[in-house]
């Protein structure tokens, strides 16, 4: 295996990622310092957490860059089972942590781990490994079934937390994986139709989702209740205009915009750096995703190609959903912006993903 090490890491990808991470620290501090001071009496509360996450993330990223991705294929069952166990652990009293009415976190001595963030990456690895070994069978329904089952189990566990946004995210990534794996369009329709039908059912199951949906359609009708979050996000983006109010000059961060440091950090970015700031950020994401797709295209084996592609999709889907929520294009749902939003688990998980991409490039033999 040592002999196959021919290529360097993807510096454009790595530097872009590091740039996003540093930018994220700055923005998390800008958006969250006031709230941190009011809530925790320490304005650096979010910044410290974020820096810790970034340090761990960078460490993980370089560690995985040096780790031959092909070994992940062998470890696929371990990875998958670990993911599922972590997802189950959040429901165990004393281990799981409940917050905002949802059980999504596992308590560790120094930090809390959001299982679903790990599971997303775990699923991509597992699916890539399966599809690369069974690529001939992917045109049959039987062939795609293991992907559907493994994804379905993860989705089911996440929706039970409940966390609709990550469920949708995993589901979409699963379809992306099947798409690249060569699944037939008619199979998509067969699976897609029930999935689409499940959405209204899930909405009706939780009344707050219905309210959110109505609020999304006209947030100005209830600007102090259901529409509040979206209206506040609009105020942020609107006051930013083209060039923004300048770094650290957000007014919405003064407790007006909830989750300003996490799911809605893009609103503060828009407010402080304007549309141009947002556009630059989107460009960097496009660059990162492009590199992932390039790595996928040039990967030396199917596993590497699927894996790189899956990671690219994962990043894309999450960025797209986040921006769509913040800009009021889809109903509000909580999903962090990769690399930038506050959230240790998310940062580490995405850094691992970038590390895997580098590894695919380094240990591939196409270059």
């Amino acid at each position, binding site marked *: 295996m040592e002999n196959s090490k021919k290529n360097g890491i993807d510096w454009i990808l790595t530097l872009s990622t590091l740039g996003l991470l540093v930018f994220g620290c700055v923005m998390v501090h800008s958006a969250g310092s*006031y709230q941190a001071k*009011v809530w925790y009496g320490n304005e650096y509360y979010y910044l410290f957490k974020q820096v810790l996450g970034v340090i761990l993330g960078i460490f993980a990223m370089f560690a995985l860059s040096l780790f031959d991705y092909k070994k992940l294929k062998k470890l696929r069952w371990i990875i998958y089972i670990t993911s599922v166990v972590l997802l189950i652990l959040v429901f165990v009293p004393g281990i799981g942590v409940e917050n905002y009415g949802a059980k999504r976190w596992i308590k560790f001595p120094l930090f809390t781990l959001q299982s679903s963030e790990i599971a997303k990456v775990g699923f991509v690895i597992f699916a890539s490994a399966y599809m690369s070994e069974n690529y001939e069978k992917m045109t049959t329904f039987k062939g795609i079934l293991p992907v559907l089952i493994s994804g379905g189990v993860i989705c089911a566990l996440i929706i039970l937390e409940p966390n609709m946004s990550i469920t949708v995210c995993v589901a979409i990534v699963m379809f*992306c994986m099947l*798409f*690249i794996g*060569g699944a037939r369009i008619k199979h998509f329709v067969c699976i897609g139709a029930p999935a689409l039908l499940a959405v209204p059912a899930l909405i009706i199951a939780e009344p707050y989702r219905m309210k959110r949906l109505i609020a999304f359609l006209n947030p100005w009708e209830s600007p102090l209740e259901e529409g509040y979050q979206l209206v506040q996000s*609009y*105020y942020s*983006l*609107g*006051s*930013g*205009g*083209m060039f923004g109010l300048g770094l650290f000059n957000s*007014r*919405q961060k*003064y*407790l*007006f915009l909830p989750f300003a440091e996490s799911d809605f950090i893009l609103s503060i970015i*828009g407010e402080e750096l*304007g*549309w141009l700031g*947002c*556009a630059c950020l*989107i460009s960097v*994401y*496009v660059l990162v*995703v*492009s590199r992932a*797709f390039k790595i*996928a*295209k040039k990967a030396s084996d199917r596993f590497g190609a699927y894996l790189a*592609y899956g990671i*690219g*999709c994962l990043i*894309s889907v999450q*960025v*797209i959903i986040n*921006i*769509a929520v913040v*800009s*009021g*294009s889809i109903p509000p749902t909580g999903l962090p912006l990769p690399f930038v939003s506050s959230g240790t688990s998310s940062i580490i998980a995405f850094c691992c993903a970038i590390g895997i991409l580098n590894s695919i490039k380094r240990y591939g033999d196409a270059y």
Partner: protein
Amino acid sequence: MRLLIAYLSIAFIFILLAVRLFVVCVADSDFLVQRGNEQWYRDLPLKAARGEITDRYGNVIVGNKSVYTVYVRPRSVTDPQKVAHALSVLLDLDEQKLYAKITSSTVGEITVKKNVAPKEANRIREMAIDGVYLTSDSQRDYPYSEYLAQVVGYTNIDNEGQNGLEGYYDKMLKGVDGALLVESDNKGSEISPLYSYVSPIKGAQLTTTIDINVQAFCENAIKVAKAQWNCKRASMIVMDVNDGGIVAMCSTPTYDLNSLPRNDINMLNAYSKNSMIVDVYEPGSTFKIFTTALCIEYGKVNENSRFYCPGYRIVDGQRIKCWRSKGHGSQDLSEGVMNSCNCVFMDLALSMGVEKFYQGLRKFGFGAKTGIDFFGESSGLLMRESSVKTVDLARIGFGQAVAVTPVQLLSSVCATVNGGYSVKPHFVTKISNTYGNIIYNYEKTTERILSESTSKKMRELLENVVSKGSGKKAGVSGYRIGGKTGTAQKYENGVIAQGKYVSSFVGFAPADEPKYAILMIVDEPSSYAYYGSIVAAPAVSDVFSKIFEYEKIEPTMSESIEYTDMPNLEGVSYSEAVKLLKSRSLNFEVQGEGDIVISTLPLGGERIAKGDVVLLRT
């Protein structure tokens, strides 16, 4: 192939999102910023202080003091129990209600109490309780308490002028409110140091014609009169004879402007009404001044004219009594004025005829508003010229069947004795804005009503009333003062109200070159004495003597006062009593139609100045 499709799809979605962001960020920006401003800034109104009202020398009559408004922002309160307890004790509020308000409120801010005194406000500030805030406000302050209460008027709880000068000049006095835009977080806590400050502009300052010292003399004089005569109301006006400026104006009962009876609206309305401007009364004998002046002006009478009073006149077959039923006998004009003989003035009025008399009265300004800078001025009541019958003409001649406002009467007296020039009564001479620029200056307008010689003649006639006649009590030893008494019966619902009088005295000094004119009105004196000469004149004397001292006007006559004892006249016949009084050079008023003196004022044996006026009851 599928990789490319996926890639292009993703890229396409990113472009769509960038466009969507552009719409929100840039296209909707103005609308969103406008909406957002409402939550980003807390608008603390900064009330502009009202302009001061000063007397002619700049003494502040109406000033300002700081008061505080106490607010609670429920979301910033950490210990509602403590807040409710502390505030309810300090501000005298119901603790339970306040607690309920704080804990159940959905609004950002509760106004707990307005107009909190600096002492309480300081204690609240020292306690520094979370969620309790203070803003300072300006409220009216009256250094002279009840002085000029009916003139300056008052402001409502929001510091807006309601009546009096506060109401009339409200636009000038009120200034322009400012604002403090405080950038605050979602809980209402201020985010320093970003704020914008719009400075309030203080209202303009009014300089009035009032002389606070003279005002003080008058306030004391009417209080004494009110107590002495137990009247319904005592009022006094001091006017600058030459330009009509109100030097002092007061009325009692009154109230302390610093503690308005805001809860009792009827009482507030009654006490704050300026009856000297808005109410009319039948002037009685003081009106004879104008009958005389016009008659002299028209050349219908001169010092050689003689009149005979048998105690009544028959006019158009109607018998109209003189106030003295026994009659005044034969008199010349000067004696007629001194005696205030009704017959003389009936003759004078009839000699002029309705048309000429009315023409003159209108020139004086009767039947029309004087235009004084005050709301609600009355124009008085002058009968329609076409419906004035001879009987009415005769009555108007001596001051009946006509109604005037006190300020109207006094300004006409000023015109009569100042050389014949009309004056316009007014309070405000100058308005200067907060930057010191003068934005209004009173400009004197005048026209000649009487000739110089008529005016001079009138001064002489009226000086005689004080020096020799019924106005003696208005005199000040060594000074020349002119004046006229007046006693009128009151009407209620069109009929004479028995025992209800309006007693008045109008005087001016110095008599040869008048500077001040004073009108004293005692409304419904309830003691047996009701003659203006006895009830109203002493107050005028009192005020004049203080003015002379204050203005350092030297006496022009070295008159040594001679004293005599009041004879004991009880049970003495009327004619005997008159003889006794004349032998001691005492003037007198008679009340009743009997032949025997029942009582006198003062009582027999009391030491009084020669020439003083005493009262006989028969």
